[in-house]
């Protein structure tokens, strides 16, 4: 915010240059369409309320530009708001990055990143029903706020349009009650859940459903029984980091369950750049280099319900500032500081970020250059209606993905794709009937090390205590693997049937 204030002060003496600047916008070589005039007009209108851009600021923007798409985002926002969905906005118009100059624009800059992520990757389509994973922290709070605003705008457009062809996507909010795995004051916790409920209730209309689901619900409807089993499973995991990671995997299972049971079609996480930077190092340190690329994209459709990360380009500092700027109320649930390896990495990244404010983005950019998987693309909707409706605004970025796609098999615990060389073939795996040893073989080496117990007897026990969704996943992935192997050799096998007939 410091730079914002000083630049704004610089503004004041130089407003006289405005007409010159506007005239120059078109000469600067990047204007390719006739939209220029209209664009400039729009901007003049905008400027009546915004600080004026100057040459000096252009320079400072140029130097502070960090290679991300914030500038592009800015003009996109302007265009879509003013020109109401005109398609000629692909051009890169030199933007006045006013976003840094006033609170409103700081805000719209971040919203722009969100919006850009959503629109360019088709994260939300009008027919969707979006479940926001809410923790009460600043990141998910901002995510919720932005989704709400986007929904509100869609609702307004819907109300204004005559044919009402374009439906408004639905929004729900889910909180996972992890009381079973942390020792907390239950009364205190209830109070916080109540606060969250109020936050969500204040975001109506449109009305959002609010789900609070305990972790143990992944076991069955009988939650007291599930709670015991959950506690027992967690006690088997001796590694602190492994325990924390396992809880995170369970959390995702819960969100999946809520989404499936309540008819949601997307799960939206508030994962921000800073969190992803940490995850990049965490995965590296845990030997998950192969699967890392799967976790850090906007879209992660390896789950039954696709998961989207629209805040991937926002730093946690920015989100914190935004929360205080807009006085968005956040609730600190029970998560203490991260433990073990994860805790070490969090503090390391924090130090690095203090030393160089663009470090987190650099880390994420490095990892972003890794080749994503085929499931990091939004699956094509079969439904032609939704296709038509969303066609206009989607500008899908061609993600370079691995095109040679034998069916991926996944670690049943962390659901990370397994490297082909790590796969072992299973001969007689019947669905739901695999032993602890076989289960271990189906897991990635990282989970084998930090989550699964070493001794066979406790491994069997652990395997029995796992939620069925995980165990079934193991059986499923090994059957997929078998099927793939069989397909590979199919041409060389003479089947019994052929011989018979």
């Amino acid at each position, binding site marked *: 915010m410091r730079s914002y204030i000083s630049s704004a002060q610089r503004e004041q003496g130089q407003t006289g240059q405005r007409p010159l600047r506007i005239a120059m916008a078109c000469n600067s070589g990047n204007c390719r369409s006739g939209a220029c005039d209209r664009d400039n007009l729009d901007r003049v209108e905008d400027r009546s309320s915004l600080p004026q851009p100057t040459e000096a600021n252009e320079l400072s923007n140029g130097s502070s530009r960090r290679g991300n798409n914030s500038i592009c985002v800015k003009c996109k926002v302007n265009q879509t708001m003013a020109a109401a969905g005109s398609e000629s906005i692909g051009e890169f118009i030199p933007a006045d990055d006013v976003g840094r100059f006033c609170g409103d624009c700081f805000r719209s800059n971040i919203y722009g990143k969100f919006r850009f992520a959503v629109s360019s990757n088709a994260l939300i389509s009008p027919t969707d029903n979006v479940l926001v994973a809410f923790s009460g922290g600043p990141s998910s709070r901002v995510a919720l706020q932005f989704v709400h605003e986007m929904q509100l705008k869609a609702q307004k457009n819907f109300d204004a349009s005559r044919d009402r062809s374009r439906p408004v996507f639905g929004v729900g909010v889910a909180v996972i009650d992890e009381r079973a795995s942390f020792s907390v004051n239950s009364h205190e916790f209830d109070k916080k859940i109540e606060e969250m409920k109020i936050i969500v209730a204040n975001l109506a209309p449109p009305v959002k459903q609010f789900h609070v689901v305990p972790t143990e619900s992944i076991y069955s409807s009988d939650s007291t029984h599930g709670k015991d089993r959950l506690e027992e499973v967690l006690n088997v995991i001796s590694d602190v980091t492994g325990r924390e990671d396992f809880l995170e995997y369970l959390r995702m299972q819960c969100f999946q369950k809520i989404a499936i049971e309540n008819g949601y079609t997307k799960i939206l996480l508030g994962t921000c750049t800073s969190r992803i930077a940490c995850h990049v190092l965490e995965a590296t340190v845990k030997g998950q*280099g192969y699967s890392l690329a799967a976790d850090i994209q906007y879209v992660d459709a390896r789950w039954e319900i696709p998961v989207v990360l629209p805040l991937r380009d926002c730093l946690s500092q920015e989100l914190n500032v935004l929360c205080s700027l807009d006085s968005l109320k956040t609730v600190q649930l029970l998560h203490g500081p991260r433990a073990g390896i994860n805790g070490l990495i969090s503090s390391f990244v924090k130090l690095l970020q203090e030393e160089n404010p663009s470090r987190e983005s650099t880390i994420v950019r490095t990892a972003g250059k890794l080749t994503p998987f085929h499931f990091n693309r939004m699956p094509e909707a079969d439904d032609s209606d939704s296709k038509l409706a969303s066609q206009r605004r989607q500008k899908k970025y061609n993600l370079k993905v691995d095109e040679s796609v034998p069916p991926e098999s996944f670690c049943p615990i962390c659901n990370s794709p397994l490297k082909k060389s790590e796969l072992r073939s299973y001969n007689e795996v019947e669905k739901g009937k695999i032993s602890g040893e076989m289960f271990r073989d189906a897991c990635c080496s990282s989970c084998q090390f930090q989550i699964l117990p070493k001794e066979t007897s406790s491994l069997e026990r652990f395997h029995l205590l796992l939620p069925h969704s995980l165990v079934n996943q193991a059986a499923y992935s090994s059957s997929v693997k078998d099927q793939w192997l069989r397909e590979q050799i199919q041409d060389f096998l003479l089947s019994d049937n052929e011989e018979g007939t």
Partner: protein
Amino acid sequence: MDIVETKPKGRLCSICNQNRAALKRPKTLEQICKDCFYEVFEEEIHRVIVDNQLFKSGERIAIGASGGKDSTVLAYVMSELNHRHNYGLDLFLLSVDEGITGYRDDSLETVKRNEIQYGLALKVVSYKELYGWTMDEIVKLIGLKNNCTFCGVFRRQALDRGAALLKVDKLVTGHNADDIAETVLLNILRGDIARLSRCTSITTGEDGPIPRCKPFKYTYEKEIVIYPFCCIMVFISCLFFSALLVFSLPHKPCYLFDFIFYAYITSENLNLLFTYAYFKRLDYFSTECIYSPNAYRGFAREFIKDLERIRPRAILDIIKSGEDFRISMYTKMPEQSNCERCGYISSQKWCKACVLLEGLNRGLPKLGIGRSRDLNNEQNKIIKQGNETRSIQSKQCGTLDF
């Protein structure tokens, strides 16, 4: 209560189950005895060499020897394994003398002792003879900033030139697992995807004049530190028994002489090893190059050490991640040609060392550093001039065939 029970007996080695465990193996935290540590340490390196087919029988191999703990242990282990498993390699020691007073001159003394002890031929190439400048002189001219650029570029070429002089087929370096893990991390932090894809391969520069490989790729720094320490223990007991043997044969003075000579050299050398093994760890920064506090690398190193403390396996996992990263290989490698001036491989007209050297000789030390366009133009101008007049004094070692 447990302690009372187990302490007096001492735990048995978890590998041989016979001797008392003497140390906790840093890599796995297994409690093992010295003999077993020795064996697994060497066996692992042997496996790495065999599995990756690092060498072929009859090859001439140069060991990049700095005199530090890594390369000293590497020289020892290489000659040991070469004998034991009949690799059939001709081993040489190759050192680079950067000309840094108080840092390199001391460590070179160690290498010279190694030469005698292991019976390996030693070749020292110095910056002074190759380039006409010592690092001391360069730092005097350009100051402490950017001097690592000079040192790094010069060393790379110096090693290749030394290897060419020795006519070796390969160069092995003592980079250990910690070093590689650290490099993986730094490349992530810096956003250098090209280097990230390369930095974990055990053999590099196969398309270049002399391939380099790292037999210590999976060897933990801590174990390298412990290894000579165990060595000393074994050696001291050997010394004791051979002394008995020698004194029981007093009428053969030539043996005695041999023995004293051997003992003198070895004990001095081991003494030094001991110093390295111990002091390097306790007094980490004192062995860093005096011109490079290298805060950033130190930062990453500290982090690796913290990780190792929580989870020793993390180092191997980082290397595994580095190997497994899905990096598409479409990135075009620059076309290789030879430097017009010295014949060294280069993607440009002149190799980097020649450009830097030209800057030094002309009193424009910033030449070739950074990306400033002006400087690049300047550089091209100079190259042009050089081509026209050919008056520039060439490198003292002259052109070498690679």
